């Protein structure tokens, strides 16, 4: 499960994720992080579900971190796609691959929602979904 965490000025300096790791022993993977003195934005991958996942989300929220689930990040219009591959190696997360016939395949689990593919597509057939 991928989560987007938004830290405010107040909580950006606290070791919140470290505490969760120590408490739960979960191997949390930080996929993307933008942290400044005033705020932080992170996308994490968390190998958990059910009760344990709920606990982690509740803890994050109790520390004042905004938590959003990262779902359905992009959509490729395969009818208009020219199967060039410009999005494939532009994707830093290896979430778009080319099949044997060069058509492209999106791998949702790998996507970190960075949207580079949206801009990398020369014929603009990749759409970012929501926020």
């Amino acid at each position, binding site marked *: 499960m991928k989560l987007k965490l938004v830290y405010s000025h107040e909580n950006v300096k606290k070791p919140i994720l470290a505490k969760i790791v120590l408490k739960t022993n979960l191997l949390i993977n930080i996929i993307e992080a933008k942290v400044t003195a005033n705020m932080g934005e992170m996308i994490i991958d968390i190998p958990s579900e059910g009760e344990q996942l709920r606990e982690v989300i509740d803890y994050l929220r109790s520390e004042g971190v905004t938590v959003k689930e990262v779902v359905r990040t992009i959509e490729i219009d395969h009818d208009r796609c*020219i199967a*060039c591959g410009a999005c494939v190696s532009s994707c830093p997360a*290896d979430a778009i691959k*080319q099949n044997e016939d060069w058509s492209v395949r999106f791998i949702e689990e790998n996507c970190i929602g960075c949207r580079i593919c949206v801009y*990398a597509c*020369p014929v603009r057939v990749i759409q970012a979904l929501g926020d």
Partner: protein
Amino acid sequence: MENRGAEELRTYEEINRRIQSGDVVVMTATEFIEYVESYGLEKASKDVDVVTTGTFGAMCSSGAFLNFGHADPPIKMVRCWLNDVPAYAGIAAVDCYIGASCMSETRPFEYGGGHVIEDLVSGKEVELRAEGRVTDCYPRESLETTITLNDINQAMLVNPRNAYERYNAAINSSNRTLYTYLGVLLPNYGNIHYCGAGELSPLYKDMNFETIGIGTRIFLGGGIGYIIGEGTQHNPQNQLGTISVCGNLKQMSSEYLRGATFYRYSTTLYVGVGIPIPIINKRVAATAALKDSEIFTYIIDFGVPSRNRPIVKKVSYAELKSGKVEINNMEVRASPLSSFQYAAKIANTLKEWIEKGKFLLSRPVELIPNYREFKPLIIKKREFVVKDVMTREIVVGRLSDSIKDVARLLTERGIDHLPIVDDENRLIGIVTSWDLAKAIAQDKKDLESIMTKRVITAKENDLIDIVVKRMAEYKISGVPVVDEKNHVIGILTTDDISRKLVGRRLL
């Protein structure tokens, strides 16, 4: 090459007779490669009449001549726009040329000439706006209307440079993402982009230009087109041959003419080109049989902003197509920008046209040259470089200096920038008067905690214009000038530039 273009195995007339009688043997380049592997080149060159090729990639040097017909009262168009994209109107009264990479004035980087061409070909209405020069012949001053491809007289796709034989691949060694005509290049050797159709590439399959010339009939944009000469920047001796082509836009298809955008670079047009290669002699058969593993290109480092970007690696299209290339012991992901799927579709379509008797081959009136000098542009007007303007009498500080020493130095010498160097005069940081203000505000005591360590620098032969842009980009007012070994040899500040360079003349 002696007898270039010699019809030793079969003539064009023989091939066309076989096309008309329905017993011509046509293979796509991919099929021909397999056939040669199974039966050998000797037999393949006897058995196969024509090999078809295809490519579908971004071809910026593309565009269309349009004739709108006369309005009443008539206008001599001086400036004109199609969906807000400027078209060149410096020809006769109601002719224009719409170029693929010209961008919309209202939606730049989103919509351009390539999109106008795609919209026209797909039958959409396009807004035409024009301004005229009033004369006795042409009393109208301006016009606004909409047109479709059906409404206008002629629409000729005329592309000065298409179908590059191969294309350089790109990588980025710098630490920031680059947006180039070879796509998004991730920092620190993050990815490789490449172009060209490899073993389906029309020009590579006849790399000595024995059958390709003026008047060669080809697949162009889903319809029929013709080669009208060598392309601009034709450089066949380095396998960078190009062709110029033309064709009637009205019989083309938006499937093979797609408007496109390279983010933060430009708009362009994806063009489908397919050339039939008649197997007229064994040399042509041999080049038509070249495989991806035998076709090479270079990976160029776009992290270096110069005409002479360094070559990082020579690679085959087979290696590129595998999706991974080893660079400095790292596996770097590679992906194409041109479509192999469409290239194959084009080669197959052309094959079908020939087999069904819908497409005859034409003997070129004149072959395209297989050698052409390739010239760079020499800038003859003097351009100023950093060493023309920089201050050589530099004041530097050392890490051991106290903040107070530095403050005294800056005020005594009336300067705002102090490069900090090590014992061998190598740059390790910079302190500005602004940093000193911060030091007081935050009560910092040592130099190291206030100095900037990732210093933006310049080299003495960098163009002033480029350095000025760099300073604006990083919002700084001065850069230390360093040599190859990072020794400080001068300093260039906005003050130097405004005092010494006025009106682009050195005072």
